[in-house]
């Protein structure tokens, strides 16, 4: 029962979701190979050699894989897929983009976004924006799975010198071409990795007012997020979005400010350990999931909170 985990990384460091995915893999079996496909990946390989649970690293270092184009990585994974019973990747935009291509080539019905491993062929996953949890049994001989990172702890990095197999790149498909990338730069932690997240909703009224959150975030070492309503209103860019169609987060503390709490937003944050809601509407559904609720005008409450931290 060999398992292949496709690592997500930026050619410098592993992305945290890879570590959560490895944890899910350890619950399925114990022969776990990590594929690191990219360009100038020395650092990533070195970091991977310390990961608990990994028995072998497969490194393919070639410019062809620099930008993780789905067509090229699919072809690479398919070239080694015969050796594996399971292929896993994180359910991030990276894994969501890539894995269905692999599953279709293998004639396998992928299981997306698992939140628990019940047995070798049975998994739980959220459906209808997390309104329900389905327990799904797969009858496919080989399984292709994406893993919701917030549902599994990260594996630790106390291993050393895991063996590395180096493979050559295979012929390019050459049908898609990377043009450019515009990555948000911030000194704050990434939303999905932050221990504290403070998010604003439509109640923030404008993008400018998000500075009220920024200042608190800086004091707490928090990431700043937003509801879909705030993104749709143009207050902040889409990479702030927490929710079913944005990022799924589960920090130690989530502070929702001026967010009503639509099911689509709750789907992205309700696994947070402690939830605080600040909203002037006492009937807002967000209060139903909050551990601490404060009915207040955010334009009074935020400056006060800022001054008391």
């Amino acid at each position: 029962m060999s398992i292949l985990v496709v690592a997500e990384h930026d050619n410098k460091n592993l992305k945290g979701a890879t570590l959560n995915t490895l944890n899910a893999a350890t619950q399925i079996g114990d022969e776990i190979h990590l594929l690191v496909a990219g360009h100038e990946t020395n650092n990533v390989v070195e970091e991977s050699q310390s990961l608990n649970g990994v028995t072998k690293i497969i490194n393919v270092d070639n410019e062809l894989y620099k930008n993780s184009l789905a067509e090229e990585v699919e072809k690479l994974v398919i070239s080694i897929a015969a050796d594996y019973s399971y292929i896993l990747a994180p359910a991030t935009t990276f894994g969501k983009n890539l894995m269905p291509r692999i599953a279709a080539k293998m004639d396998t019905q992928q299981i997306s976004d698992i939140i628990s491993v019940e047995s070798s062929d049975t998994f739980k996953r959220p459906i209808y924006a997390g309104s329900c949890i389905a327990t799904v049994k797969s009858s496919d001989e080989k399984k292709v799975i994406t893993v919701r990172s917030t549902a599994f702890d990260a594996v630790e990095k106390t291993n050393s010198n895991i063996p590395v197999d180096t493979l050559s790149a295979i012929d390019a498909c050459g049908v898609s071409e990377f043009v450019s990338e515009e990555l948000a730069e911030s000194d704050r932690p990434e939303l999905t990795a932050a221990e504290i997240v403070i998010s604003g909703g439509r109640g923030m009224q404008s993008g400018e007012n998000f500075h009220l959150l920024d200042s608190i975030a800086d004091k707490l070492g928090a990431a700043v997020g937003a509801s879909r309503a705030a993104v749709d209103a143009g207050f902040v860019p889409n990479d702030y979005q927490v929710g079913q169609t944005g990022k799924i987060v589960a920090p130690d503390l989530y502070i929702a400010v001026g967010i009503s709490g639509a099911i689509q937003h709750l789907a992205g944050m309700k696994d947070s350990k402690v939830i605080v809601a600040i909203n002037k509407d006492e009937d807002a559904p967000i209060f139903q999931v909050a551990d601490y609720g404060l009915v207040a005008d955010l334009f009074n409450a935020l400056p006060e909170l800022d001054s008391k931290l």
Partner: protein
Amino acid sequence: MKILVPIKRVVDYNVKVRPLADNSDVDLNNVKMSVNPFCEIALEEAVRIKESGKATEVIAITVGKTESQEQLRTALALGADRAILVESDTLLEPLALAKTLAKVVNEENPDLIILGKQAIDGDNNQTGQMLASLLDLPQATNASELIIEDGSVAVTREIDGGLQTLKLSVPAIVTTDLRLNEPRYASLPNIMKAKKKELKVISLNDLGVDSSPRTEILKVELPEARAAGVMVETVDELVDKLKNEAKVIS
């Protein structure tokens, strides 16, 4: 340029879905059904490309039961030129759906296929990528901008850290994210006109697709409810609770 837009009939966005009493599946009795919101965005994009003069035909297609004709009529009212229903008694899994769509693509030979990134029922986010894989076509998922160029399309994608732009040779497959466009509403005259547009029905059996399910739903249940919280009266009380009770800030 010919554009194919696969759409899906799903439970309306505003319906709160619950499990059946015996937990065998979700309860879909007497709930409102609609076009999946991401599919509406896909259709809107296709219609806008046609309106800009860069496409000649927009075809909407769905795979589903007879009732799915309602959603195809909506698509026709929103600007699709014709529609195809591949009739199936059961709801297909994404892999079988992609295989079915691949058969139709091979008949219709569209230059561009635009789909929603996911349907809001199963939340699988698979069909577009699977279709691309089966047809060995390039893909751009989670599109927030789509520019038609000569022999290619430039697509800006929403990825976890920001935006990425790819250039794909055509034919190509694009899946839509929320900010690609804001879909229009169907006007009454267009709803009337849609009734006269072509809606072809073909049987899934005639396409020779293996649609047997590969997964079985053993149980559908509500997620674990969070324990009830407390309301605080002041910011001071909130800070105190976070420091001394929850111990999440210092």
